């Protein structure tokens, strides 16, 4: 008796529910809701269709590495807005990823699941992993690449193809100094150490830089005449006298000359320099706009000082920021992407980028603009870039970075001799390259 009652009750409830939500079931109800949401960001586009009804509506989802702190993301969004004004049928959705690493990880995951974005705004060394996994397409046939700076193009060339369109060139380290504390930049390392000791005696920290990343090691390695790869571009050459000398030099800066702080990461160096407690910093072109803001006319820019022992200039890696187009994008979407890329890299926008972000352009033509030629900061940046070398984009470079990082830290923490560290770097890099297969 009770049981059948319960059953009837359940059935009645089920039927009532089905009847009640039959019309308002999830799909029909949520579909308009989604539309309403996606309509909001495209208002500018939505007004226009009446004028250009022929053009097919295309949405481009672009992932970017830029953040808000240095204005990069705002610049991205402003470009997208301006482009959508001109092309009402195209919607560009800018999606910010937390950092370069996360952009790479998530792009791989998304591609694996078949849900990749349509365009990437990222750095050159992603070309290595993305081409290995066949996730992006070459751009040689899509664009006239001869208008771009060669140094920037080289950094995304692999297997004879170009895998990205440069947006800016540079991304290189340089020496920035506070003219209040040190009127002129040292020309070579002997001068650097001598002046550094004077500054230290006055209670000023002479030089700061991110001591944890090998990106800050590589310029000096160039200054001592070394390279991370052999001629073939994929065999690591880390256990060399040049590397040992470089590590010794950095060790001496810290423990002999004592002109760099005992421990210093990116944020720490940055703050010390901004607060005027450190006289010099080695940092990249991405930081220029914030230092101009912090120090104004007291900011000076110079190449990293010549290595006195070899007479060579340190060679920071140069690259830039790039558009990469995922594999499998074609048809109207590819066309839309092409016009967006051309829009971003036209002369007007390239100069705008110079002014807003203090990054050097990727377009050759833009270098003659007075925005660069009349700006001492950017002239310094150009001078440094001239002695830089293109950053390798091959997948093996990842192994080199990972191999160098802990050893650099160990030497600077006085836990390994430079000789031992160099040998361990090489071994680690070789093991790593084996696991790539």
């Amino acid at each position, binding site marked *: 008796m*009770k049981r059948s009652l*319960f059953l009837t009750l359940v059935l009645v409830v089920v039927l009532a529910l089905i009847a009640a939500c039959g019309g308002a079931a*999830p799909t029909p109800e*949520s579909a308009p809701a*989604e539309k309403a*949401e*996606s309509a*909001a*960001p495209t208002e500018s586009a939505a007004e226009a269709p009446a004028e250009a009804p022929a053009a097919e509506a295309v949405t481009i*989802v672009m992932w970017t*590495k*830029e*953040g*808000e*702190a*240095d204005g*990069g*993301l705002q610049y991205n969004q402003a470009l997208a807005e301006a482009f959508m004004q001109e092309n009402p049928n195209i919607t560009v*959705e800018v*999606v*910010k*990823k*937390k*950092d*370069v690493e*996360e952009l790479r990880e*998530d792009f791989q*995951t*998304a591609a*694996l*699941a*078949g*849900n990749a*974005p349509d365009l990437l705004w990222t750095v050159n060394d992603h070309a290595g992993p993305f081409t290995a996994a066949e996730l992006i397409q070459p751009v040689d046939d899509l664009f006239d690449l001869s208008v771009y700076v060669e140094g920037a193009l080289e950094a995304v060339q692999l297997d004879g193809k170009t895998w990205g369109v440069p947006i800016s060139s540079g991304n290189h380290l340089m020496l920035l100094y506070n003219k209040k504390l040190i009127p002129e930049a040292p020309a070579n390392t002997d001068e650097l150490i001598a002046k550094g000791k004077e500054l230290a005696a006055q209670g000023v920290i002479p030089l700061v830089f991110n001591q944890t990343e090998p990106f800050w090691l590589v310029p000096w390695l160039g200054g001592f005449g070394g390279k991370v790869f052999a001629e073939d571009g994929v065999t690591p050459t880390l256990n060399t006298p040049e590397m040992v000398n470089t590590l010794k030099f950095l060790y001496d800066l810290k423990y002999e000359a004592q002109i760099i702080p005992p421990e210093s990461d*990116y*944020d*720490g160096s*940055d*703050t010390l320099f*901004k*607060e005027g407690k450190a006289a010099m910093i080695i940092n*990249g072109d*991405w*930081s220029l706009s*914030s230092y101009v803001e912090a120090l104004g006319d007291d900011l000076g820019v110079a190449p990293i000082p010549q290595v006195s022992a070899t007479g060579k200039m340190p060679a920071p890696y140069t690259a830039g920021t790039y558009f990469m187009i995922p594999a499998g994008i074609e048809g109207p979407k590819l066309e839309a992407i092409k016009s967006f890329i051309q829009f971003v890299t036209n002369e007007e926008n390239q100069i705008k980028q110079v002014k807003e972000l203090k990054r050097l352009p990727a377009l050759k033509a833009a270098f003659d603009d007075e925005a660069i030629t009349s700006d001492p900061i950017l002239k310094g940046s150009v001078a440094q870039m001239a002695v830089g070398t293109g950053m390798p984009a091959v997948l093996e470079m990842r192994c080199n970075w990972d191999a160098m990082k802990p050893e650099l830290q160990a030497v600077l923490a006085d836990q390994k001799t430079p000789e031992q560290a160099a040998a361990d770097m090489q071994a680690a890099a070789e093991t790593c390259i084996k696991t790539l297969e």
Partner: protein
Amino acid sequence: MSTNPAAPVQKFTPAPARSRFARFFRASRGDSPFKRLLIHLTLILACVIAVYPVLRVVSVSLRPGDRLLSTSLAIIPPDATLDNYLTVLLEKDFLLWVWNSLLVTVATALIGVALASTAAYAFSRWRFRGRTAGLIFLLSTQMIPAAMLMVPLFILAVRLNLVGTYRGLVLAYSVTSIPFSIWILKGYYDTIPIDLEEAALIDGANRLEAFWRIVLPLSTPALAIVFLFNFMTAWNDYLLARVFVANATSIWTWPLGLQLLQGQFTTAWGQFAAASIMVMMPVVALFLYSTRYLISGLTIGSVKG
């Protein structure tokens, strides 16, 4: 099998000497003033340790400019300003992110509690085959490193068309929090004497009614705990949200939104700290409100005494 947890498990051995500090290790009224002072001092020190790092975040949020680091130990900087809070509130979509988080989190917690409360009842009151294995399986899901399920869950979400929707997030969060909830609730149900339900059954109620009218109301503290835990998990999640709704900026939750403030090398620390303080508020409020449940609900709940 529903003994009071306070029953003595082991007999103590009486000792001849009686210590002056006898009461130090247990609750007691007549503590001496000196001892009370000592206790208060210890607790104050502990509170300072607990709160100080949070205050440092407050301090960063009040600093003008993007200065994460400062050698000053003062909590309120001399040039304190609320600019960072205003920027985050007015110029960013902070309210949208918090709203999304809140919506997803509340829906998750409710669904999670509903699904777990019934399943836990079955585990508590019936001895079916596979019950032990089931409980161990549930415990073992707590041991799965979160990063391990990220890729397959994402693939699944793409196939089921759940990417970029609230639906996907709500489903994923509520299911992943079920095992822990079942454990807590099952333990709590175990402490409720079965006689109460039997009495109800004799009075003509069926099993479901007994569950609904007797067991559930008695379990309020444990249900509150489970709600709180589900809430916390969903509220703080970044790993899943990062792949599930990355492309749909309109349904970003706050952890995704906050990453806008971070760049490759540069972070807007002041705004980041201000936003952190603001997202902390709802959780702290929830904790404050539920402290009493926390204490009674978890303890008896987690085991059967």
